[in-house]
């Protein structure tokens, strides 16, 4: 797909950043905030998309991919971060790169109280398990932020999470789908 990427089409910018860093395996537990990025990856013949039943599967997948010479990314919502904690021993112990892109809930104008505890805990949980964090709050920063995160992960052999702010994704209300 060669169509021009709008500066404000931040999922397309993330996709471009992943392409530029040769990410080949894209695993995800769906989130509405990741809908467009998942679709862009699905139609990209250079990428294999892997739907997961739970987020920690994506950490094992990324570890196996790197052992086999490929780069992976894990897409998830902040509610899934808690599922990943023990699996994060893989990058921590083995120097296996891990790039995660986490769409945030439970922060900017959240309407669902059940999203708030995990959303608020997300940065602390990731740090406690050894991951580095970059924040993405503005659409125009998407390309640079994910490129920086990819370098930190794949060249710095680190577990890195890009937290995509709920304000950027768009706050939901009860009138919309959850």
């Amino acid at each position, binding site marked *: 797909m060669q169509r021009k990427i709008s500066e404000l089409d931040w999922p397309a910018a993330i996709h471009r950043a992943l392409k530029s860093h040769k990410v080949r395996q894209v695993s995800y537990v769906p989130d509405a905030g990741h809908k467009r990025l998942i679709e862009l990856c699905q139609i990209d013949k250079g990428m*294999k998309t892997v*739907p997961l*039943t739970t987020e920690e*599967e994506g950490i*094992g*997948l990324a*570890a*196996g991919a790197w*052992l086999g010479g490929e780069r992976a990314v894990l897409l998830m919502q902040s509610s899934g971060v808690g599922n990943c904690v023990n699996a994060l021993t*893989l990058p921590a112990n083995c120097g296996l790169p891990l790039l995660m892109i986490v769409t945030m809930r439970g922060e900017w104008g959240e309407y669902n109280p059940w999203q708030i505890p995990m959303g608020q805990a997300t940065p602390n949980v990731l740090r406690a398990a050894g991951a580095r964090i970059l924040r993405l709050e503005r659409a125009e920063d998407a390309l640079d932020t994910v490129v920086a995160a990819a370098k930190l992960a794949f060249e710095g052999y680190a577990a890195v999470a890009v937290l995509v702010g709920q304000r950027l994704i768009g706050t939901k209300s009860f009138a919309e789908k959850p």
Partner: protein
Amino acid sequence: MSETKLDRREVVRALLERRGELLVIAGLGSSAWDCTAAGDHPLTFPLWGAMGSACMLGLGLALAQPRRRVLVVTGDGEMLMGLGGLATIAAQRPGNLSIVVLDNERYGELGMQRTHSAYGTALAAVAAGCGFARAEVVRATAQIAALRSSVHSSKGPLFYQVKVSPDSAPLVLPPRDGAHLRHRFREALLGTKAAAE
């Protein structure tokens, strides 16, 4: 339950002797010791933690290396912690991936408590229900040759639940430095230059 159960060390030895280009992920605990007892190898990646992840490492590796055969050797307890991964794997249909679960119906490293397998969870049926190309229970010595042949050459994804004795075998430990295990695997598979990427 069958009267006689297979010896896990003999099963793994049969799978890994003359292993050729086989890539191996070993689940934590006894499965990793079994693989090491069959001969420590740079292209065996033994896990010492991240319980429940073994099959997913196998999938990532199988997708990255579609021309190589990939074998996950793990235990029933480790498998039970990541059952959802069987659905994820079946959805990808990796033709080069096999999973062998050494099912002693016990948490062997943790006090020999009975696993769900002992209470009737049919792991092979779970894999079949997820959509594995083949999912079988192996109980007899006579089946081992066919098991080995399938792991090395049949189109996957394949799943084998191998009923083994709960007897403990002597500890034969692999290296536990994760960075070393990662690097030696990549160097043996990808070459010195690519491994240093």
